[in-house]
């Protein structure tokens, strides 16, 4: 079945540094979404990005569909960016598979 791998598993940054989170998946995806989760909080959709590049504020998502990978770039990180970032994909079977997440900690 579909597998989704995220890297790194965890990341510690100083405030102001940039972060690059990776998501790799094993077979064709028709839906790819990046989420942010506060510790103990709701999953918030950051990007719905099955292909191409999207920007919002300090965040950029780039998905290269035929290479089965997506990245999430966070520029000028802030302490409020701390939390867990997930990518989730689904294919034509409609089964949604989540990656294991990247835990980000931004220090002041």
């Amino acid at each position, binding site marked *: 079945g579909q597998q989704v791998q995220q890297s790194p598993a965890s990341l510690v940054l100083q405030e102001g540094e940039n972060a690059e989170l990776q998501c790799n998946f094993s077979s064709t995806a028709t839906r790819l979404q990046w989420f942010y989760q506060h510790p103990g909080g709701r999953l918030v959709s950051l990007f719905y990005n099955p292909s191409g590049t999207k920007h919002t504020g300090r965040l950029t998502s780039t998905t290269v569909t035929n290479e089965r990978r997506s990245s999430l770039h966070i520029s000028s990180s802030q302490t409020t960016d701390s939390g867990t970032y997930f990518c*989730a994909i689904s294919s034509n079977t409609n089964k949604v598979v989540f990656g294991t997440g990247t835990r980000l900690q931004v220090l002041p």
Partner: protein
Amino acid sequence: ETAVFQTPNYHVTQVGNEVSFNCKQTLGHDTMYWYKQDSKKLLKIMFSYNNKQLIVNETVPRRFSPQSSDKAHLNLRIKSVEPEDSAVYLCASSSDRGAEQFFGPGTRLTVL
């Protein structure tokens, strides 16, 4: 306010009891989902409903059953809970099967 709502926020119960969690979305979406997030934060889909029809039913234990009265509501019932059912249960919806998903705040279940 248009969003995905879940009740209760928390529930503590004992092994063998029955519990029921509610989910409602006011986004006008056709598809709803239930996910389980364990203590390691791993998220796995349990059920998916499109216009009241079950379209994905993962290999979850039979004590779990989804219940949908209309496309805006998808409840989750667990008969005879077990300790391994302790987790956060997340409800989500999307406009159709392939579209962007929006999540509720989750229900944290603790089984003693």
